[in-house]
């Protein structure tokens, strides 16, 4: 276990280094870093300060080391557009993205499991077939297109729900949250549904497959023989057994949700990290781009590491010592 952890950590550090090299090469080596890192309307003193801070007068390898040193200290430059530290700007948007991702996760479980159970228990019924067809669409439709359609139908045609922004927020420990107000909830519904779509389809499939398999098992027959009610058999015995793979897969999907939030946030103008990065790319706010890329890759490496470790703890069959 310890050897695995060390190996895995080393690998993570290596990926992070490769990533930083890629970002560094893109931002510093191609084109003139002075133009890239310094806002066009910066004055002479500001210019000199940044040149010194990033060592832009030094040889390339030394610049890279400085960049790493700065990055490790959390200094990834200042945003041109907001003239605040880039990292702080991104972290400020982090709660909005997390709120969206968590809401999407809850929707995937809340809608996916009941629908999947229905499809699994009554596969030949009209409802079962409809659910499966819709779940195929959930896999193959492009997220942004579904988002547009949701806006078109529910915001423009029907006028039921707002199409953009977070609505009214409540500060909890200094963190603004939407879901605590009615207005915020209304704003949260469409984007989180859009983001959840893929995962709803995934959970439906997993639940259906799991339910169909579980119904063949001896423990279900035994429970029936014991005279338990159908609701109890499905709600307690079957559900408990199919929940394990669903939870595992969903945990693995959490990182993807944060990545895909880029699309949903842009469509619904949800002020999270994803919208920030797209806006920054549009106005070429490079310090923010660099900071976002470094942060999101770090986040992914951490998520992957945690999932791998948890997996080994939950499932003793996965032996980590001799990885692959």
């Amino acid at each position, binding site marked *: 276990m310890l050897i695995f952890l060390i190996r895995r950590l080393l*690998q993570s550090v290596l*990926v992070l280094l490769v*990533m930083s090299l*890629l*970002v560094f*090469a*893109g*931002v510093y080596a*191609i084109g003139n870093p002075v133009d890239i890192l310094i806002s066009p309307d910066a004055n002479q003193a500001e210019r000199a300060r940044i040149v010194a801070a990033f060592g832009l007068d030094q040889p390339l390898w030394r610049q890279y080391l400085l960049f790493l040193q700065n990055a490790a200290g959390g200094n990834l430059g200042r945003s041109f557009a907001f003239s605040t530290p880039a990292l702080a700007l991104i972290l400020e948007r982090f709660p909005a993205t997390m709120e969206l991702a968590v809401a999407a996760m809850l929707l995937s479980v809340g809608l996916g499991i009941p629908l999947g159970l229905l499809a699994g228990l009554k596969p030949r019924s009209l409802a079962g077939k409809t659910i499966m067809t819709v779940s195929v669409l959930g896999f*193959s*439709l*492009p*997220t*942004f*297109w579904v988002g*547009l*359609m949701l*806006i*078109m139908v529910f*915001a*423009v045609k029907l006028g039921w729900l707002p*199409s953009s922004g977070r609505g009214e927020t409540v500060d909890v420990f200094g963190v603004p949250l939407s879901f605590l107000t009615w207005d915020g909830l209304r704003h949260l519904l469409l984007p989180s549904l859009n983001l959840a779509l893929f995962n709803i389809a995934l959970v439906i499939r997993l639940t259906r497959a799991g339910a169909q398999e579980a119904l063949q098992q001896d423990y279900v027959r035994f429970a029936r023989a014991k005279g338990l009610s159908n609701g109890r058999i499905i709600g307690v015995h079957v559900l408990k057994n199919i929940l394990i793979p669903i939870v595992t897969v969903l945990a693995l999907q959490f*990182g*993807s949700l944060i*990545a*895909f939030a*880029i*699309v949903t946030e*842009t*469509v619904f103008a949800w002020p999270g990290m994803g919208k920030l*990065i*797209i806006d920054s*790319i*549009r106005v070429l706010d490079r310090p923010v*781009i660099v900071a976002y*890329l470094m942060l*999101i*890759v770090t986040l*992914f490496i951490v998520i*992957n590491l945690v999932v791998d470790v948890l997996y080994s703890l939950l499932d003793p069959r996965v032996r980590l010592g001799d990885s*692959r």
Partner: protein
Amino acid sequence: MMTRMVRQPDTPLVRFARAYFASRIAAAASAVLLLLILAALCAPLLAPQNPYDLMALDIMDSRLAPGTRSGDGRMHYLMGTDEQGRDMLSAILYGLRISIAVGFASTAVALVIGLALGLLAGYAGGRVDSLIMRVADIQLSFPPILIALVLLAVSGPGVGKIIVALIAVQWAYYARTARSAALVERGKEYMEAAAGLGLSPARIVLRHLLPNCLPPLIVIAALQVASAISLEATLSFLGLGLPVTEPSLGLLISNGFQYLLSGTYWISFYPGLALLLTVAAINLVADQLRDVLNPRLQGV
């Protein structure tokens, strides 16, 4: 059954075609896909107007609803017009051309690269194998959109750049599949026979190993074309993919997005429909290919 025994045995291609077209949905999807590809190829011939010839556009016709005639009565805008008075049907045909070209080109190149690396890994084994597969594993642990975002954020938009990004996203799938197919095939007798005949490794890999590894890769490539087109549309919608001079379907949808809220739905809706139709048709074709090419499911 009896008549079949008297007749000449079918060639593999005929058997494949019969199994493939046994599904009516797959046959319909193939027809739709063929039509879409033909429409994309012949866009300059089919389109009522060249959407990028600014001289042909009439600004007076901007944002006309589908089915309206132009002010001077010469054009009939079946799918409406956009902000600049561009006929949406023509724009969609040209956009489809770019989307399909980018999707197929990136998949083809990624397939060749992934196949070469996968076969190399599977055939050579050892260090080469673990290096290639480790890189593929690490890459597959990130969602495709994130990898494309990193590459495009660093390199900026452009047709060549988005193709490179889509190749970078896809190659690992092929490498992995090709490797596992190669590992299975490597242990078989015909490979031993080929080696026993003293054939060169290059000939063994290209003439004997490669053809037997292809079926699963064809299925994955078919599925990947759909996701490549979808990903390109997403990236273009986000403003990261193609430049405004080469508007794919994603960019057309993005252009119409700002008018969607004011009820001018058609600028986004019809390109979206074209995208949807393309992706769905390719997915259905790929599903059928999987069912037919997978020997475990054959004859079911």
